[in-house]
């Protein structure tokens, strides 16, 4: 840093030879613009800014020079807005015709977030969870702001359980649309159907339930509340409505309940007896109510809700498991076995028998 120690005149031209000189000048101009607009209460017009902030100097009477300035100023404003700088537009008095600019400090500054060390550690861990590139970058730039506000984050803290957080590509557009209350449409593929169908939705919010993401909202075609799994959305989500294009969701709506409604505990009222070869079908033994050893194998008592789904899982164990009761379960298993055997009866294999 030769410049700072030797040149108290702050020679801005000192490093024009460096590779980043162009972007450096631009960054410097933008920092000065932010400081200038933060310091003013009065709205400053583009001309006033050009006359004040270094880097905008030009000849306003030369049309080409002036146009170049305007382009530069537009680009700079866009960059500040993209960064989240709340650029206000207005006029200093009723006599002004040209718009002016300023930044309200109240809107600009991060409010004070007094985090205790253990809370700061939790935020630091949270910021590292994202495996999605865009959200990971957003989390770390958010964390950088908290640090800048004086929060110290222990980079080595752990909480013992690490959730691995992933999201589907539709996550960002849908959360954005829900926040701004904009109608969306998307193509939705359900495995049981042959082609994706187009759905139109007023999204209320996005929900993570048991590790999967869903969007809940008012389905415009069904005229009812529906939820959709984000992983089944094909292609891009199209944002069709303007911000605020639908009323806020009903007060007190519990998004999770719409997704979790079908996932409640099932009542297992059925009771089956199966014969299991000794030492086999470990998976079945794990949830058996009783297990009694006998000469021809072990008898397990299983409780079940739906005979068809129990039949399916019993068939998985093949000849290691035989249903003794009830008869309808036994029949369901035999029926499945017959169809499977028929489906796999290759001519060559048949000839070998």
């Amino acid at each position: 840093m030769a410049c700072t120690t030797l040149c108290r005149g702050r020679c801005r031209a000192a490093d024009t030879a460096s590779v980043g000189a162009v972007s450096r000048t631009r960054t410097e101009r933008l920092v000065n613009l932010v400081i200038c607009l933060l310091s003013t209460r009065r709205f400053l017009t583009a001309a006033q800014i050009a006359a004040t902030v270094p880097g905008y100097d030009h000849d306003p009477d030369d049309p080409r020079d002036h146009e170049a300035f305007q382009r530069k100023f537009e680009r700079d404003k866009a960059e500040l807005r993209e960064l989240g700088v709340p650029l206000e537009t207005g006029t200093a008095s009723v006599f002004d015709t040209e718009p002016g600019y300023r930044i309200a400090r109240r809107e600009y500054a991060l409010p004070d977030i007094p985090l205790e060390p253990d809370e700061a550690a939790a935020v630091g861990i949270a910021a590292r969870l994202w495996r999605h590139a865009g959200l990971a970058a957003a989390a770390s730039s958010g964390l950088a702001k908290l640090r800048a506000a004086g929060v110290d984050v222990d980079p080595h803290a752990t909480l013992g359980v690490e959730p691995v957080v992933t999201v589907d590509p539709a996550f960002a557009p849908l959360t954005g649309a829900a926040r701004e209350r904009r109608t969306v449409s998307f193509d939705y593929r359900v495995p049981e159907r042959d082609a994706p169908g187009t759905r139109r939705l007023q999204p209320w919010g996005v929900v993570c339930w048991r590790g999967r993401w869903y969007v809940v909202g008012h389905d415009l075609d069904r005229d009812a509340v529906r939820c959709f799994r984000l992983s089944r959305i094909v292609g891009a989500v199209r944002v069709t409505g303007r911000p605020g294009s639908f009323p806020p969701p009903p007060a007190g709506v519990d998004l999770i309940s719409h997704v979790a409604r079908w996932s409640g505990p099932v009542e297992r009222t059925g009771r089956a007896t199966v014969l299991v070869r000794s030492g086999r079908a470990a998976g079945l033994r794990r949830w058996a109510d009783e297990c009694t050893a006998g000469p021809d194998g072990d008898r397990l008592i299983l409780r079940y809700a739906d005979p068809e789904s129990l039949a399916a899982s019993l068939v998985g164990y093949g000849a290691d498991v035989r249903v003794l009761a009830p008869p309808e379960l036994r029949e369901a298993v035999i029926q499945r076995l017959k169809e499977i055997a028929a489906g796999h009866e290759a001519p060559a294999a048949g000839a070998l028998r």
Partner: protein
Amino acid sequence: MTATRGAGKAAAARPAGSRASADRLARLLNLVPYLLARPGIEIAQAAADLGVTERQLREDLELLWVCGLPGYGPGDLIDMAFDGDRVTITYDAGIDRPLRLTPDEALALVVALRMLAETPGMANRDAIERALAKIENAAGDLVGSAVAVRLPGDAERLDLLRGAVQRRRALRITYYTAARDETTERTVDPLRVLMVAGRAYLEAWCRRAEAVRLFRADRIDALTELDEPAMAPPEAQLHDVTAGVFRPTPELPLVTLRVGRGGRWITEYYPCEEVRPGPGDEWTVAMRVTDLTWARRFVLGLGPDVTVISPPELVEAVRAEAAAALDAYAVPQPATPEPTG
């Protein structure tokens, strides 16, 4: 957007350059309040903390040093005092606070904190919830009710597993391996507890397999914490679970199935190499499996909706097993003491 030098490359180079300059501007606006909150911080420490090189940080300081309030005289410019390798901001020109969070930043932090708060068995849940409340408050309306998270799980089980990891104790576990349909006893040296896609896993060095293994928490049927310390060998490497827990490798056997409408759900639950519509209503699905015995149980369990196309030995194994099971039903049923009550 204006034209830049070198028309051909400009279009491609511009976004990256613009990104880098936006990143730098964001960093500079943070830097003044950051240093203001830490008077006399060592430059090397600040650089490490901010994730930039010391050289980059010095360049940033140099740039800030020529910025300031209109007038741009000595009393208007950002000023700082250097004391050896330490720096203190002595004048901030009005950028004494960082910018507020953008909607994306607020969303990323709040959702991740909600995930942490919802994860069963988490230590220090109280701190997570306090932090979440404060960040939500600072974020204002940016996130609100747009995202909700619920991760049900067996908190008690996870508490035990997490405790073992934190106390660095070896564990004796009874574990059900679905791939082989067997329950085994193992001694493991715990490394960490993970939640992936809504399921909890213990990642540990398995002394029996002499390798790092992921154990699904709901398949650990019994658990004893041993007195001996966990001693995972230095070669124990954690898995990268970003792409899911089961990541098929090309050495594994490839199985091709014909799947009817009712069985199509498997393509959402298992990683597939290929899913092709047809023939007819059916889909042709190729997937890699850890072993063919598991594949046989899998296919039998799926029932008549699924038919194996290849490999031929799996076709035969499924047919033979179904036939053997049917043969057993053909002989008279053993006398059953019908359970009562």
